[in-house]
């Protein structure tokens, strides 16, 4: 076996037992733990969960950009075989925006209001490529055209407030794509947009995914958004991955009661007898109120005494952490 084929077999991203910890005055708070995740080259992973489940933190942790007092508390984050948790800040900086990129949720807040769009694209080009201003400008125009911004030459000198939300998100996507990264982490990039704009951007992204061959982690709380994009889906609950597998399987034959609950709560389900939509009882716990064992058990209809112990991780390509999983019957 040659080195090249060995590399092709090895996953692009391999997280094992990663935890994310916040150092507070009352001691460390564990926001995310026991995180296991693998991503092959060119694969699209949908990372799904409620607010506070730790999905965005996971994205920032991979990028090595957790804001203090947050930090990676343990585990390994292998990116192309290299453990990111052991890299020094300068080496991480060379990777960020270059071989891995991230797009944030709210396009109104992502771009700096005091700098022109051109400046913000050009600085991202020149951070990783020793090109002159003129060449960088030409590349910036090309980058804007790629995400469907017309009249790019002129719009380069505009400020973010002269752009609509959808346009701004296109700019962030253009910036993320600049150096054809191996990995793009998209943190709910369509959540803050109008539904029509959302659809356009999703279409655009789907085209770009195919065109670029980058691997994507698409973070979302909306299963329906992820359904159309992802090869695999990981579901997070209260800082842990509770189920992970091929997108179709997870969406149609979920094993974990939480995933099942999410699918049943989608508004396209038929309403209940009283005309209301089904919903998971209760709400996601704050970090300090997470229970031992299975963290979903206070809200789970299947929970019993066994669930006070940490659930085992079952399955191989379709993993789930539950004492009483569904038997994999099709839900729709």
């Amino acid at each position: 076996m040659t080195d090249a084929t060995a590399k092709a077999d090895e996953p692009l991203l391999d997280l094992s037992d990663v935890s994310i910890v916040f150092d507070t005055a009352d001691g460390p708070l564990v926001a995310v733990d026991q995180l296991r995740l693998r991503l092959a080259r060119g694969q699209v992973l949908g990372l799904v969960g409620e607010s506070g489940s730790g999905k965005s933190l996971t994205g920032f942790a991979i990028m090595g950009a957790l804001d203090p007092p947050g930090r990676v508390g343990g585990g390994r984050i292998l990116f192309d075989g290299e453990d990111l948790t052991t890299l020094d800040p300068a080496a991480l900086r060379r990777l960020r925006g270059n071989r891995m990129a991230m797009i944030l949720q709210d396009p109104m807040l992502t771009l700096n209001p005091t700098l022109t769009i051109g400046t913000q694209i050009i600085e991202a080009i020149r951070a990783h490529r020793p090109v002159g201003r003129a060449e960088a400008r030409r590349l910036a125009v090309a980058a804007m055209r790629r995400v469907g911004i017309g009249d790019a030459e002129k719009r380069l000198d505009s400020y973010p407030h002269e752009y609509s939300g959808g346009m701004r998100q296109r700019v962030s996507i253009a910036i993320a794509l600049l150096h054809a990264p191996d990995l793009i982490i998209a943190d709910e990039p369509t959540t803050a947009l109008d539904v029509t704009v959302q659809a356009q951007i999703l279409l655009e992204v789907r085209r770009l995914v195919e065109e670029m061959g980058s691997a994507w982690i698409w973070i979302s709380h909306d299963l329906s958004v992820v359904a159309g994009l992802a090869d695999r889906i990981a579901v997070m609950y209260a800082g842990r991955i509770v189920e992970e597998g091929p997108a179709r399987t997870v969406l149609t034959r979920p094993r974990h009661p939480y995933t099942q609950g999410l699918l049943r709560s989608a508004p396209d389900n038929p309403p209940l007898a009283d005309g209301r939509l089904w919903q998971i009882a209760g709400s996601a716990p704050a970090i300090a109120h997470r229970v031992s064992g299975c963290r979903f058990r206070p809200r789970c209809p299947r929970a019993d005494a066994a669930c006070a112990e940490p659930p085992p991780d079952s399955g191989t390509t379709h993993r789930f952490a539950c004492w009483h999983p569904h038997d994999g019957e099709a839900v729709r």
Partner: protein
Amino acid sequence: MLEVVLRRLVQAVGVVFVLSLVSFVGVYKIGDPVQLLAHESATEQEIAAARERLGLDRPIHEQYAAFVGRMAVGDFGTSFVSSRPVVDVIVERLPATIELTLAAFLISVAFGLPLGILAGLYPQSPMSNAIMAGSILGFSLPAFWFGMMMIMLFSVELGWLPSIGRGETVTVLGAQWAVFSRDGWAHLLMPALMLSLTTLSLVIRLVAAGMREAMMADYVKFARLKGLSERRVVLLHALKNVMIPVVTVLGLEIGSLLAGSIVTETVFAYPGIGKLLIDSINRLDRPVIVTYLILIVLFFVVINLIVDLIYTALDPRVRDSLR
């Protein structure tokens, strides 16, 4: 833009009018300058003659009308005390105050910005706590006390710095400047430090608070995610946003520096226009007082205009709203 400038000028004329009226009447009510000026042995006739010469025998509204009439053609009158044109008296003292205010302003910015940035970037560090505690002291201590303590330490105890006056001056462009001589610098240092105290503290706190907020903003996160150097993230992306409110406040602070110069110049017997104002008030030298105030108003108008221009350069959203 032109419209903004014109509007400002019209406002300025209104303010000058009201202010001159108030100060004119105010000083008139306080007392009779002739009584203060006249020699102890002056006779009734001599006093009456002086009053007539200064135009103080006429009713107040006539005096004011005469004053406005002269001012309209650029004549601000003659000092009661020195019998010299008021403009000459003020212009002669102006360089001292310009030096002092500018020095205090530069100290505030040159130290306030970096200290504020450091305190904002590392809010948990002991260094940051020390900077923030220091800035609270700077706010709370009366500046004149700080000035007197400096005099006690550096002039009386150590004998390093002079405590009085401006020192040696050099004539440049027809005015006397102390900053061109070593002796002038020695005289300027302590007054400038005292005057900068509150502004420096204010800049530190503003920049630190703004920095802390900006570092949590999404655009800073995104700048970092692009792989930019931390230096560029902080000094361009964060700082440019932090500077928008800071510039506004700095503009206003030039005003309080001028006001503060009155106290500072008094503490250090520093011959600027602040000291001139206090001396003039003590002697009820009305032409000087009123002219000083008008000068300050005009100065404020110019400063505010400059602040607006800088603001426009910093914040593209403001630029658009002016179009």
